[in-house]
């Protein structure tokens, strides 16, 4: 995953090339995440700080991308981490990775925030079809780790391979926070078509991102086929 916020003194795992380099960096230490989670369950607030050091930057980046407002993004990140602190049993390690759970929650909370926010905000409307609407990091020269940049580049490549109509509905929903019905109204496309484009787009992404998503999502291909 791009730019995962590892502790500064933490050496990078994996290699700079090959499949391993395309793996989500957050997965490099799932066991470490599990240990941090367990410490939080035990009431160790220092573990929350470590977990924030690991995921806070990514959580904030996603929230800021969706909310288009720094203050709102801070609220979302604070809400998410404190929700987990307050009741860590909400995360079930048996159901998946902590990073996936956390970022999904950040996404949902961010979408909720922009939906309820009374001030008009810039909503993500992909006006171009060159992939720039996804705001993927521009490359290794950016403020990214090498692995993060590789992953982001891979994601960008995958997005570029999606048909524009599928990319657009996914962008509006995922980054814009619009419901499918709203996407239909904005694009002038029937709701059923929006649903099917979203479905197909996710399925294609899953296949294209296989090396990044990993084996855990193997069911998706079957479920979407």
């Amino acid at each position, binding site marked *: 995953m791009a*730019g995962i916020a590892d502790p500064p003194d933490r050496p990078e795992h994996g290699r700079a090339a090959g499949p391993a380099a395309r793996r989500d960096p957050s997965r490099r230490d799932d066991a470490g995440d599990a240990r941090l989670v367990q410490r939080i369950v035990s*009431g160790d607030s220092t573990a929350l*700080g470590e977990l*924030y050091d690991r995921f*806070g*930057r*990514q959580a904030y*980046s996603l929230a*800021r*991308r969706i909310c288009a407002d720094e*203050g709102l993004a*801070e*609220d979302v990140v*604070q*809400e998410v*981490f*404190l929700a987990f602190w*307050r*009741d*860590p*049993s*909400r*995360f*079930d390690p048996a159901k*998946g*990775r902590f990073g*996936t759970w956390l*970022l999904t*929650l950040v996404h*949902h*909370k961010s979408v909720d925030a922009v*939906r*309820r926010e*009374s*001030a*008009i*905000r810039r*909503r993500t409307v992909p006006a171009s079809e060159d992939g720039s609407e*996804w705001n*993927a*990091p521009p490359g290794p020269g*950016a*403020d990214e780790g090498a692995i993060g940049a590789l992953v982001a580049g891979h994601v960008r490549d995958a997005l570029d391979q999606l048909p524009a109509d599928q990319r657009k509905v996914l962008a509006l*929903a*995922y980054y814009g926070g619009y*419901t*499918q*019905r*709203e996407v239909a*109204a*904005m694009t002038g496309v029937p709701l059923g078509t929006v*649903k*099917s484009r*979203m*479905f197909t787009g*996710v399925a294609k992404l899953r296949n294209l*991102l296989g090396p990044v*998503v*990993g084996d855990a999502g193997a069911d*998706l291909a079957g479920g979407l086929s």
Partner: protein
Amino acid sequence: MNEQTVGWALHALEPDEEIEVLQHLEGCDECRRLAADVAETTTVLGGAVQQVEPPASLRDAILEQARNTPQVGRAGDRALPRHALRDDVASSGASPEGGARPSRSERLTVAATRPPAGPGRGSARNGWLRRPGRVLVAAAVALAVIVSGGVVVGQMRSMQAERDASLAQAQEMRDVLSAIAQPGTPHAFLSPGPGGPMVAAVVMKDGQREVMPMGLDPNEPADQTYVLWGLNEDGTPRAIGTFDVRAGQSGPVSVESPDSGSYGTYAVSLERGREAPPAPTKVVATGQVET
């Protein structure tokens, strides 16, 4: 259901659709796996956005808040979500212990009405943050529990539970949602416009209409009243009855009415005075009847 499951995992469904998917997920291993897989895929997208360093104060604020926030013990078989964090920490700023960083709602004076910012972005979106007990997802989770008999969906259910639900709120909704869960029970989810959030639900229960005002602001009982309207095919509204929404109220409201007619659409308006006018002056939500 696959398309809907993907929409659900992307948080892109309407409230009533979310409820349907939640019900379905209770008994469908395939769709639960699918939702989890979609989450895996979209998480990669989420991680690929341009990375921005958060302000250092955010980390400090989170840890400070955590030190002042008691933890809920791990429970074995929670059938329902326990609380809405936003109610006591994140959004209201009402943490009794006092947080290190005020939330946005404290830092800014937010206008009560949000100007439309796109389709379905009506003013009724306001208030969700500030109104405990008026959150759809609490209803969705409660309904899922009602329908399933309390079977835990797992990560998807807990994710829903994260979103603003509380045990008390869910329990107060139980009666109405139980009625909605019965096949053939006429009910309607009301929103301010197409694509807007559900702000109320109407259900016929024991021959009487009940309104669940999940997103309706309290009215001034001295000189305002909400009116429930029924619309038939010709679109002519008929006043069914009046009701009040009081601050802090989170349960259903019975609408006293001798009118036992059936309607295809319900609407709610907020009116000056204490009686229903001949026609609605300010419609705040409408919704089609479903069974």
